[in-house]
């Protein structure tokens, strides 16, 4: 049982116009076996949260903490975070020329496990995982993400999720740009990884449709760098019907909670 804990996280980026604060005090606790969905309109800071957890150098944490079972994640380098068990499925996976998928997957697995995987079982595992995600076998010999379509890139991210077996998976808009079939395939992959029972999932999405295939235990609504509303899966259904319009930018969580209380009274 592991816990990823984010406490009062403030994050800013440097822009040409100066420093801009994007996350304005985010707190979240994710435990093994839980699936948390983070939803919100464009520009609300969802992806910033994902990249900050992974340690992208563009994002500066100005205050707050991220800990993994009490260990200070913010003090770790990007690769150390991955080896500690944090996995980010990227929204825009980059192409890495000259490095084949086979070589990349084995190198990463070796780094994460601290020892080279047993060649025979590893090859078999990779092959089986690729088949389940309907990735052509010849992708293994191609360079990482090079010339892959958007959907193929996302499937390859989930392939890595299944092979690397992280403690916490952060899925950054993995559903965007996928057609229905690909969305199903990708969701099944996430569910398989989750079903092993050793992973907590932070699912970041703009749309509710992926939540038909991946059932969240908790839903957090992000607006303007803050969590403005939290609830169970029913909150996602409500968002599906109502959209994000009722979260007028600038409205604080308290305002909405008060409005909800009034509505229920």
């Amino acid at each position, binding site marked *: 049982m592991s816990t990823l804990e984010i406490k009062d996280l403030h994050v800013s980026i440097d822009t040409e116009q100066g420093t801009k604060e994007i996350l304005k005090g985010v707190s979240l606790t994710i435990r093994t076996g839980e699936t948390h969905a983070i939803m919100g309109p464009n520009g609300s800071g969802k992806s910033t949260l994902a990249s900050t957890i992974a*340690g992208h150098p563009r994002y500066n944490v100005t205050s707050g903490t991220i800990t993994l079972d009490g260990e200070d994640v913010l003090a770790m380098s990007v690769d150390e975070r991955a080896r500690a068990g944090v996995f980010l499925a990227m929204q825009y*996976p980059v192409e*890495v020329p000259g*490095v084949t998928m086979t070589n990349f997957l084995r190198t990463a697995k070796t780094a*994460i496990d601290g020892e080279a995987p047993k060649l025979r079982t590893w090859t078999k595992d990779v092959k089986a995982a690729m088949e389940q995600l309907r990735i052509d076998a010849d992708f293994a010999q191609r360079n990482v993400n090079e010339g892959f379509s958007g959907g193929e890139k996302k499937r390859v991210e989930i392939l*890595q999720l299944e092979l690397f077996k992280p403690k916490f998976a952060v899925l950054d808009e993995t559903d965007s740009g996928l057609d229905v079939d690909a969305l199903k395939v990708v969701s099944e992959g996430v569910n398989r990884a989750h079903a092993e029972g050793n992973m907590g999932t932070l699912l970041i999405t703009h749309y509710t449709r992926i939540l038909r295939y991946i059932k969240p235990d908790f839903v957090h609504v992000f607006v303007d760098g803050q969590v403005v509303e939290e609830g169970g899966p029913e909150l996602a259904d409500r968002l599906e019907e109502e959209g994000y319009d009722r979260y007028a930018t600038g409205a604080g969580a308290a305002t909405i909670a008060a409005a909800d209380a009034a509505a229920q009274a």
Partner: protein
Amino acid sequence: MTDITTEKARIGAPSAQPFIDGFTEEGESLSPLNATESKSPLAGDAVKSHSHGGGVGVPDSSRAGRLTSYKLADFKPLTGMEEDWRFTPLKRLRGLHTAALDGNATTVDVSAPGNVRVETVGRDDRRIGSAAIPEDRVSANAWENFSQATVITVPADVQADGEVTVRITGTGTEASAQHIVIVAERFSKSVVVLDHQGTAVLSENVEILVEDGAQLTVISLQEWNDDAVHASSQQAKLGRDAKFKHIVVSLGGDLVRVTPSARFTAPGAEAEMFGLYFADAGQHLEQRLFVDHAVPNCKSNVLYKGALQGRNAHTVWVGDVLIRKEAEGTDTYEANRNLVLTDGARADSVPNLEIETGLIEGAGHASATGRFDDEHLFYLMARGIPEDVARRLVVRGFLNEIIQQIRVPAIEERLTDAVERELAATNH
């Protein structure tokens, strides 16, 4: 001719900002001619004014018009303002362009399979001059001064049993000359490796004759010591249906300048020219190649890849491809890719394509020089791969494309190791 010249592409002109001390936008040794007129290097007028031609006895700026001669006296002393020397730091040539190249600083040792002939001959041998004529002063200087030449002949219809290895070992710093002739006779098939090691100050002419239907691979390895200076002109003449593959690998040496060329003399021939270079701090590695499509229906493909690291690491790649009026049905592509790993390094890349006929299959050129990408690094590190391993993975992958072309396992392995050493040498 003039019209064609004005349209000559000069893609890859460096940016206008002088990033490195002592360098200007046009390189280290900038012609005053260019300095005043190169405000807009891509503009038509600038290109026109860029021509070095026009004077009596001075060739025009088409690659076809370059002065060629066996006589040193025909080439004017170098000033560094010449188009083909403007990137080269002449003061580091250690006399290759000025001294009489009468030193004896290299030993040549050839190991060849039994069905290949190896001879050492004098200057009057009939095969001298059969494939090459000097195109610059340093090459002509070597031509005038060599005393003996090594001639390697793969007889007609023979498939060489294993590769021919010519070990050129530098043993001193007297400016020296060297001459090698490789003759691949009709329908022969062979691989010749020129393996340069040690310390030398050497100007070398390599003549390569690929007769009708012959298949020849020439691999030139420059793994010199840090203080070596080497200029090598490697000219190939290709007969009908000949297949020629040329691979240049420059890793070691203070200044290495390789100028390979492939000239088509009959239809149906194919030339593939590959290069790999890895420049460390202070090294100058230069490659200038020329593909001369002078006859119809020939194919050429060029790919050079370079990595640079460390202060004042400097690489130069100039690729001249000429499709003459007669060369209908030509299919050609050339590309250069550079990966700059640290600050303070400089890669110059100039692909030139001159096309004098529209009746061709295809002609393309490309050049890209990029920094090691932080997003690549982030992606790999986010998968648990430590930074130094990630960097190596990318550079190794980048250069491997060329190493794979060698297809001599022992050399591929040696070069893979050499690249690893280069990478380990930095403190990434």
